[in-house]
């Protein structure tokens, strides 16, 4: 629990610091012939993991932003007080305070070492003290994220506090010198503690090389004289030292042991008797512990929603009225959220740095080089002073953010999410504003701080209630997805469950497989414009996830493009490979069933045939044009569906697309395909084959929000059995999805492929038949449901069915009139095939044609006998440009048993 819960903001601030990664010499290539990965990208990749490293004694890392020219900007939790200032006061002359300082610092160090890296940057400046005076280590990951100092030009660490063995290894980290070990931090701590205890600075008047040499000499003669004694002698402090309490003297002496065997590790120190009376830090600090318990939370909710109805509860009387109105609601949100909101409130890191005199580069025109040779050597370039390392941390002001959020009423931080209160919420002023906001385009909503605050609070609550709240999560996601909680919400929607962590751990992802080299090639081209996915860390993670998937799905194989499918999930769950894997495989199971079989032609061909039916159904003009230039969907859409569009869109568009796609059933991607074509429609209609192929493969800027809206519309206007596929995923067994089996929200969320079969359902057609037909077939039960004739078949009809949610249909009966009069579907129109078309292919005017023309836009269902007549008739209609033409599967015969056929009145 302690490990994974994000710390709330509390009284901390945000701190910003910046440094440059070293840049590679020009045109250098790695062993594989590809250009070297920029160092800042490598740092970025390593950094990601720190975002989830929480410990009460460590300042949390929040973000790393890449700027121009390898600049990196770090955002961390920060406190204004630090040991460097506090040590002047008398706080730490008290033995207990001193030992607590040491204990807490060691706790932080031990956590760092447990996680396999080294601080090396220890300095009184980097030991911060929060408002309660408790230690928070900062700047502890610079050594780690820079690859043990390899990716930056400046040396990491402070000369006075470096251990002799660190100095001896030299400033440039090369392969010959191993990186510093964790015990060098203990030395640094020892020096700091000594300084604090004796209130002095170690060799303050020496020049830098002299100081360094002194420390090295401590190491050289350390075996004969204890380094501590040497230091004390040089500063003539021995007497003062002797006056310190025994525990302190013992501790410092222990830390400054030269030999590794004598110097304890941070973990050993914690167990030392000196610290007998201290216990490990708890996760939540005191100020926020008020609401750490569920009960306190409930109290808050009740307090802020003290409407007449709930104030009857007994809890309400226990409220402490004195504390009203002065609480800092923001303080209880997690740091991640606060930083995100800060960004939305107009926070700009580079601006903040500039305000404090950073980033002051001379104008580029003044620094242009004089000469560039053909080898890319640049001459006449001056080093910019601003590229030097500066360890200053700037405090970001949160005042502006607090001011911006002032008007948000407290109850909005503690929303009610269950029952009727949900609806009642809409009465308050702020939620009315929200309603207006929710009408705005998605891009604006994602940038609006008020809106996002509400969404974040809501999703935070909902996700904490998962899986109980799954239904509500889905409903809310339909509106939109707060980017901050996308990873968790996606996992919830994909119904990831079980112990995926240990499942993932149990699979061997390291042993070489024959596919490895192929994976490597593809991964290095997968969404590489994104800096996180470009990093070596991401490459190895992606490879592990893909291998894990391959091993856990032995009947499937790797298809190129699968890396792209995996990429968005990895991006979102970068620090949780197991979850990324679980999401990715759930996604593939749902939407890409059988797509990755070694022979997937049958599956794909069927998918594409259904896709062309859908195009004909929704856009006959485009379909006819594509047919005339023989532009088959196979030529372009294979890539779309095989990667579920993950290979054709950049990540930010994939996110918006998937936010909706994940809510839809396995047929929804087909509608997305149609929607994409709709956006390119005007170009496509004008061009010939080669130009069309170019346009589609180039994929001009697709407006993804419009695309999503269009695909929802298309989806709603498609009878669900039209997307029936033989190779779709078989219905899940009931017991599998017991927690998730819930009532379907509406007619459309039911997946036709997961419904039980009956004699009125669709049956598989052979691929040839499917490809020969132009229109989708719909099942008889669909037809019945669509014209509201489901009286007999009430078992499957949705419970809350409103007429408006269904397409209005027009049934054309193409049998000859005698058959028609013997029995037909009520309200169907008779248009015998043999009389309907003139020799040129036009329709012969008749009653049916007027109906057709006056009700354009309705779904037209062609009903005939079993056989090819109906599909051919429908194809002719499509050729004439009639939209929404479909064929009833199975012919009129299959309806005979239902007894709904009526006999027409004799006068017709």
């Amino acid at each position, binding site marked *: 629990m302690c490990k994974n819960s994000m710390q709330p903001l509390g009284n901390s601030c945000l701190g910003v610091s910046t440094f440059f990664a070293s840049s590679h010499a020009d045109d250098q290539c790695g062993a594989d012939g590809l250009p070297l990965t*920029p160092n800042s*990208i490598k740092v970025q990749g390593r950094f990601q993991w720190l975002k989830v490293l929480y410990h009460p004694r460590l300042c949390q890392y929040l973000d790393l932003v890449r*700027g121009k*020219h390898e600049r990196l900007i770090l955002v961390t939790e920060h406190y204004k007080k630090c040991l460097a200032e506090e040590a002047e006061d008398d706080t730490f002359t008290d033995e207990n305070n001193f030992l607590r300082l040491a204990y807490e610092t060691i706790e932080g160090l031990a956590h760092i070492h447990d996680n*396999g890296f080294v601080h090396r940057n220890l300095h009184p400046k980097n030991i911060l003290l929060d408002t309660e005076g408790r230690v928070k280590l900062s700047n502890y990951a610079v050594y780690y994220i820079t690859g043990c100092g390899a990716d930056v*030009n*400046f*040396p990491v660490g402070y000369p006075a506090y470096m251990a*002799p*063995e660190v*100095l*001896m*290894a*030299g*400033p*440039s980290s090369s392969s010959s010198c*191993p990186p*510093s*070990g964790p015990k*060098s931090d203990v030395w640094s701590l020892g020096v700091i503690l000594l300084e604090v205890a004796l209130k002095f600075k170690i060799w303050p008047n020496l020049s830098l*090389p002299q100081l*360094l*040499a002194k420390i090295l000499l401590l*190491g*050289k003669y*350390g*075996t004969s004289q204890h380094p501590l004694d040497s230091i004390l002698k040089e500063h003539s402090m021995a007497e003062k030292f002797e006056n310190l309490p025994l525990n302190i003297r013992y501790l410092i002496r222990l830390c400054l042991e030269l030999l*590794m*065997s004598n110097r304890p*590790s941070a973990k050993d120190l914690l167990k030392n008797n000196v610290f007998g009376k201290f216990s490990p830090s708890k996760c939540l600090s005191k100020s926020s512990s008020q609401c750490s318990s569920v009960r306190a939370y409930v109290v808050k909710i009740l307090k802020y929603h003290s409407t007449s109805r709930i104030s009857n509860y007994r809890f309400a009387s226990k409220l402490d009225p004195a504390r009203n109105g002065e609480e800092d609601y923001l303080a209880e949100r997690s740091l991640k959220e606060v930083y995100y909101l800060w960004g939305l409130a107009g926070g700009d890191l580079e601006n903040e740095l500039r305000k404090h005199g950073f980033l002051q580069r*001379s*104008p*580029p*025109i*003044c620094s*242009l*080089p*004089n*000469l*560039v*040779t*053909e080898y*890319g*050597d*640049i*001459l*006449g370039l001056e080093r910019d*002073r601003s590229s*030097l390392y*500066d360890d200053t941390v700037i405090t970001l002001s949160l005042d502006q953010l607090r001011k911006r959020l002032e008007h948000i009423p407290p109850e909005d931080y503690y929303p009610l999410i269950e029952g009727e209160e949900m609806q009642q919420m809409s009465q308050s002023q702020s939620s009315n504003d929200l309603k207006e906001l929710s009408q705005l385009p998605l891009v604006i909503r994602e940038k609006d701080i008020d809106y996002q605050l509400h969404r974040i609070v809501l999703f935070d609550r909902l996700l904490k209630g998962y899986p109980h709240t799954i239904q509500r999560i889905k409903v809310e996601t339909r509106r939109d997805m707060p980017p901050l909680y996308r990873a968790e919400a996606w996992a919830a929607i994909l119904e990831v469950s079980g112990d995926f962590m240990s499942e993932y*751990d149990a699979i*061997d992802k*390291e*042993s070489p497989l024959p596919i490895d080299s192929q994976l490597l090639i593809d991964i290095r081209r997968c969404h*590489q414009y994104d800096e996180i996915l*470009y990093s070596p860390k991401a490459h190895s993670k992606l490879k592990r996830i893909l291998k894990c998937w391959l091993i856990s799905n032995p009947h499937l194989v790797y298809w190129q493009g699968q890396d792209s499918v995996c990429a968005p999930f990895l991006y979102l769950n970068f620090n949780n490979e197991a979850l990324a894997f679980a999401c990715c495989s759930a996604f593939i199971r749902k939407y890409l069933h059988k797509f990755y079989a070694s022979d997937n032609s049958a599956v794909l061909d069927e998918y594409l045939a259904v896709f062309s039916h859908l195009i004909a159904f929704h856009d006959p003009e485009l379909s006819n044009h594509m047919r005339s230039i023989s532009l088959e969907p196979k030529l372009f859409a294979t890539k779309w569906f095989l990667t579920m569009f993950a*290979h054709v*869109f*950049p*990540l930010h568009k994939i996110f918006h697309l998937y936010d909706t796609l994940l809510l839809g059933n396995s047929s929804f991607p087909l509608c997305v395909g149609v929607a994409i074509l709709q956006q390119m429609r005007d170009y496509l209609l004008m061009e010939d084959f080669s130009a069309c192929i170019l346009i589609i493969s180039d994929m001009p800027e697709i407006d993804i929000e419009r695309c999503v809206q269009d695909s929802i519309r298309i989806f709603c206007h498609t009878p669900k059995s039209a997307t029936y596929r033989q190779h779709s995923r078989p219905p899940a067994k009931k017991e599998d999805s017991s927690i998730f089996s819930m009532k379907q929200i509406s007619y459309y969320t039911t997946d036709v492929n997961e419904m039980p079969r009956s004699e009125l359902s669709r049956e598989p057609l052979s691929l040839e038949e499917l490809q020969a037909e132009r229109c989708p077939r719909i099942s008889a039960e669909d037809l019945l449901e669509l014209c509201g004739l489901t009286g007999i078949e009430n078992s499957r009809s949705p419970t809350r069915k409103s007429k408006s949610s269904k397409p209005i249909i027009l049934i054309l009966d193409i049998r000859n009139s005698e058959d028609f009069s013997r029995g037909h579907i009520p309200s169907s129109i008779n248009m015998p095939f043999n009389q309907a078309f003139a020799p040129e292919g036009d329709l012969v005017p008749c009653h049916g044609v007027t109906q057709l023309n006056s009700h354009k836009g309705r779904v037209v269902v062609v009903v005939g006998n079993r056989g090819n007549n109906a599909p051919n008739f429908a194809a002719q209609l499509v050729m004439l440009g009639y939209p929404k033409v479909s064929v009833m599967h199975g012919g009129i015969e299959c309806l005979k048993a239902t007894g709904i056929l009526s006999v027409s009145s004799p006068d017709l």
Partner: protein
Amino acid sequence: MADQEREFKYTFKMKSSVTTLTVPVVLPLTASAKEFVGRLMSSHDLPCFVEDDLFEEFQKFILTETSKLQDESSSGILKGLEGAAHDKIGKIADQWGKAYTQECVGYTQDRDQKGSSDFTDLYHKLIHSSALEVLFNLEHTYSVAVQDVVFQRDRSIQKRQLKQSQEMEEAVQNLDITHDDQHVNMLAARHFENMQRECQQWDMELKNLQQAQREEFKTYIRELANDTNNTEESSIRQRIRAMSDSLPVEDTPEPVEQPGMNESFTVNLGSQLKTIYNLRLMSMDVLDLCRHRPSRSGGRLMPQPQRLQSAMSLYSNSLSALVLLVDDRVSSYTGIKKEFASICQQSTDFHFPDMDTQLRVVQQAVHKGNVLRKAHKADERDRGSQDNSSEGSSNSSNEEISTNLQTGQLYKGQHTLRYPSVLLALRNILKIAVYFDIYTITIPLLLVYEMHEEMTIQWCYKRAELVFKCVKGFMIEMTSGRTDGERPGRSNLWYRG
């Protein structure tokens, strides 16, 4: 850290048999301990009941072994330290000292800030304020004065040339009558000397004028900046305005802007994430981009929009560049270099050293470049042979970047390259451009200035296609891995003929 292999032993009991598992483990462990145990379990078919115990044992093993390893390596270093001589310690200390003083702000002696950065800030601020107009008037006044001198110089030199050629003609006609060979030679020598002297005089005068102007300009900028806070028309402004108003109002016929052939395109590059570029195809004299044609309407000076833009963006992060093709000598005597130089001379450059100085700096850099180039010699040799063979009709083999400022202030970056490597040079130029915030770049589309007979339409198509494709490739290359605030760039491609 050198990877170390350690042996991990695990013993467990099953019924009566005792099984021992021995595996080599490479430290430090790359994957998590849990995963490693998972691998062990599956590859050795271990019974599931040992898993928890195995994991515990293994974790303990990893912890102790890793820390042992770290201790060993540190101890190794310490041993080295113990045996190290004092001078070696001194050397290491110096190394560290150098690393700190060169890279960290806290340890460097504060170098004094360059005075010029002051000026650039002031100028940048003023040009984006209401002082814009005043500045333009000032610059115009100066450029008129310079042009005047240039005009006089050209006229007087022309006069002298005429006179000299007449004298020479006379002398040659009367050869063997009044003059002999020696006389003619002496005359020629005298002519040359006089000419040189005159040129020098004029150059001197021009230089002095420009120097004076430059200093005056800087003073004005400072004074102007001082009273930007005054909303009223300050004395300096009035003085400057008076200066420019007192200029004789020449009724220069408005140069008719030929529309020229000009077409714009927008392209999206990249497979998933698209970057937008604007391309403009222009058919024009490239140096028109550099010429300054002030125009007056109703007695007020109207700056050209192009000039306005380059002045406003001069010290900004959005620069423009122009690529000129020149021969392999760093000078300004021939071809387009000469034209360019004469444009530069038409007015004083207030921001950068004059062209000759810049050329000298470039010349110095070329020397250094040659030294560097020797280092690449082996590489060069097998490329050199290809270069020559396909040179063909192209007489352009050298490139320069000049930032596209009206007064042609900058003349930097040079490449000594033969034709196919022109493309390589183009790549380098684009790379530099991206690095130094140059977002508009103008490139000669056909990579030549003069048309020859063999340059058929077909040839032009081919050449243009080549350049387009290369530039496209370079642009994609430059933007990859640079998501940092990359703004959509704009490229002007121009051609002649």
